[in-house]
Every structure is written in structure tokens, then in C-alpha cells.
């Protein structure tokens, strides 16, 4: 295990969540779940982050924003869609301005379903994302450069 998976810094973006999943994401940081045990820090800055955690689905207002945040993260990076809205669009799927799940805009590596997703499953999703992070790193090194990690590397829950 390299340092990479021991120090996942994440950025949490609320795409169009009802705040249910957001509260659960924040709950992970609380003393009860204490994700800092795994070295996880909520940085709030894409340029420092390794893991992009998104709650809520994509709509016309935020698709550019999600794209922008993703582009500003240095590779290797993984995306975790938290909650059913982020995975598929959820109950808002048919709304006139909703595009759907996060994977309509950027490649998603781990899907954490639930309405709202429970902290345990969020933590589990992020920890699973770490092995994907390692894979991407290996792939990056194989390609020789530090170019952008291209295709999404499967995985899911």
C-alpha cells in the first residue's frame, strides 16, 4: 500500500442534494465515525483532493461545475457518487432540469446508493475507492507519464 491510499483527501460537492446525504457525509467526520482514522481529510479544494464525493444529481445548473471541479483535481483521482440521486438521479430523475446521475458528466468509480446513504456505507465506499486510486496510479505509471487518468476503472457496490 503506497501513501496514496493512506492519505485520501476529499472534496465534497453538493450537486443538487436535498441535504440528507450531505449531513451523512459530515457525520462521517464527527467523533462517532471519525474518518480521519484513515487519513481522510475534507479539504474543500479540488487542487488538493484525491477523492471527489458528490451528493445529489446533475442538473442544468451544475453540470459545468461538476466538470470543472473534476478537471481541476490532479490525477490520480476517483469519484464517489453518494446517495441514489448521485448514482442515478433518484426521484428527481424525471424533472425537467435534471440530467441524471453523476456519471452522465464525469466518470464515476464508486456508487454508494441509499436515501440517504448511511455513514457506514459512505465510509465503505470511500475505502473501496482507495484501491481504485491505487490501480489508477499503477496505470499512470505504466503509461510512463503523469497524464490524466483517462477511462473510468469500473467498481461499484
Amino acid at each position, binding site marked *: 500500500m*503506497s*501513501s*496514496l491510499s*493512506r*492519505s485520501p*483527501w476529499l472534496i465534497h460537492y453538493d450537486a443538487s442534494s436535498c441535504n440528507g446525504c450531505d449531513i451523512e457525509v459530515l457525520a462521517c*467526520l464527527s*467523533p462517532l465515525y*471519525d474518518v*480521519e*482514522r*484513515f*487519513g481522510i*481529510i*475534507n*479539504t*474543500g*479544494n479540488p*487542487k*488538493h483532493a*484525491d477523492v471527489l464525493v458528490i451528493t445529489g444529481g446533475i442538473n442544468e445548473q451544475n453540470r459545468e461545475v461538476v466538470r470543472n471541479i473534476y478537471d*481541476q483535481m*490532479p*490525477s*490520480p483521482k476517483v469519484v464517489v457518487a453518494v446517495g441514489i440521486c448521485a448514482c442515478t438521479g433518484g426521484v428527481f430523475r424525471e424533472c425537467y432540469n435534471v440530467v441524471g446521475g453523476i456519471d452522465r458528466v464525469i466518470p464515476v468509480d464508486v456508487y454508494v446508493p441509499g436515501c440517504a446513504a448511511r455513514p457506514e456505507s459512505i465510509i465503505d465506499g470511500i475505502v473501496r475507492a482507495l484501491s481504485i486510486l491505487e490501480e489508477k*496510479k499503477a496505470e*499512470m505509471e505504466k503509461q510512463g507519464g*503523469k*497524464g*490524466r487518468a483517462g477511462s473510468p476503472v469500473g467498481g461499484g457496490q
Partner: protein
Amino acid sequence: MHMGNALLFILLAPIVGGLVAGIDRKITARMQGRVGPPLLQPFYDVGKLFEKEQILVTPSQNFYITSYLVFIVVSGGLFFAGGDILLVIFAFTLAHIFLVLGAYSSYSPYSFIGAERELIQIIAYEPMIILSAVGMYMVTRSFYVADIMAAEFPLIYYLPGIFIGFLMVLTIKLRKSPFDLSTSHHAHQEIVKGVTTEFSGPMFGLVELAHWYENVFLLGFIYLFFAWNPLIAIGALAIVYFAEIVIDNTFSRVTWQLTLKSSWIIAGFMGLANLGILYYLSAVVPL
């Protein structure tokens, strides 16, 4: 000059600094009722940063950050080699100007405001650091760290006001709340990550590394107050650092106005009053 000490500093300071940061995070977590990260977490973090892709806003950032690190190492090395403490302080300021310029160079709103705040922090702490050096000179009659180290009496006995003033600015330098204006170790700041917002990957790793060097240098500065007895000195370092962690966890961030005013007032009153008394005493009874 003890070049050996400088070399030791260059080699060991990252280890010590990283460990101190790890202990810091562990204690902080315990104070908040959490388990906290592993002790070696800071090393994982920096190790990871060096594994990441290099993204930049402008290539000139590299130059400023590398210079920041280099001059932090120079000032720390000079300090541990026993050099002139004023020159150490000037090199230290030079290093921070490079950090600020690196933040300015990206022309990003967040790092721009971070840079402005970092400058405010610099002017908030610099007078007190210079007054501390002056105080040490007045007691030991030398600006050389080596001579100050060799003093056979406790400096703290003559410089209590200076020491309190120095603790005040130490909070700024360690980037601890309530004075973590320009960038913070805590998650989510109103200006994202302030001065470091636009540094990422290996470059951010260098910033962290520089911060470790800086912390060791600052601890060395506190050591000088107690240098006559290494055991007490190390105990004092532990207490001071613990106090900083307590303050970090019990205060919320203040505005830059309050930061500037409070540190200048403390420097003005505690520092200058202390120096004034020393000045008077040395005129009456030479030390």
C-alpha cells in the same frame, strides 16, 4: 559556526517536524473525542502529494515555492549552525515573501486574498520576533545563536515579557486558530485554502515540508529561552506546544484587524516593557 548542526537540521528537521505534526493531530483528535489518524499520517500525506500529478496555474509558481523551501532551510540551517539571529530572521522573512509571491502569481481570487492575509500575518509577527532577538542580545550581549545557547543562566528569567509576546506570534506562525488567517490546517476556510489554494501535488508537498522545517526552527527559537538546562527546555517545549494545541482547539478564527492589533499591542506592551526594564537595569547594574 557549526556546519554539522546545520546539516543535522537539514536531515532531521523533516522527521522531527513531521512527527510533531503527527502528535499534534493525534492530540487534537483526542481533545475532540476522536481516535485520530496514525502518528505517521503527516508523512503519508506528504508522500502522497509527491505521487500526484503536477498541475499548475502558471509555471512560475514552481520557482517561488522552491525558493520558499530553500530559504526556509537556509534560515533554519543558519539558526542551528549558531549564526547571527537577525540574519536568520531576515532570511526567514525573505522565504515567506516567496510564498506570498507564489500565491500572487496564480492570479486566483482565493490565493490572492490568502497572500494579502499572509502579508498581514508577517507584519503582525515580525516586530515581535525582532524584539525577541534584541532581548536575547541585551541579556547575552551577542546576536549569535551559538553564544545565546551557551548562556549559563535562564534567559526566560530576564525575558518573561518577550517570551509571552513570542508565544503570541508563535500561534500565528504555527498557523493555529485563532490566527490561521491566510491558510488553515482545519477543513473548510472561508477562502478555501488561502495562500496554498493553487499549489497542488508535489508543489504542495514542498510547502508542507517547508512548514515542518519552519516549525522545528520555531521550536529551536523557544529552546533558546531555556537553553541553560536541556531537560527543562524540552519540557518547556512540550508544554508550549501543548498550550498551542489547546488554544487551537478552543478559539475560533478572528479577523485580521484583531490579529494585527493584538499582536502589535502585545509586542508593544510585553516586549517593549520587558526590554525597557532590562535597559534600565543594565544601566544601573550591568548583567
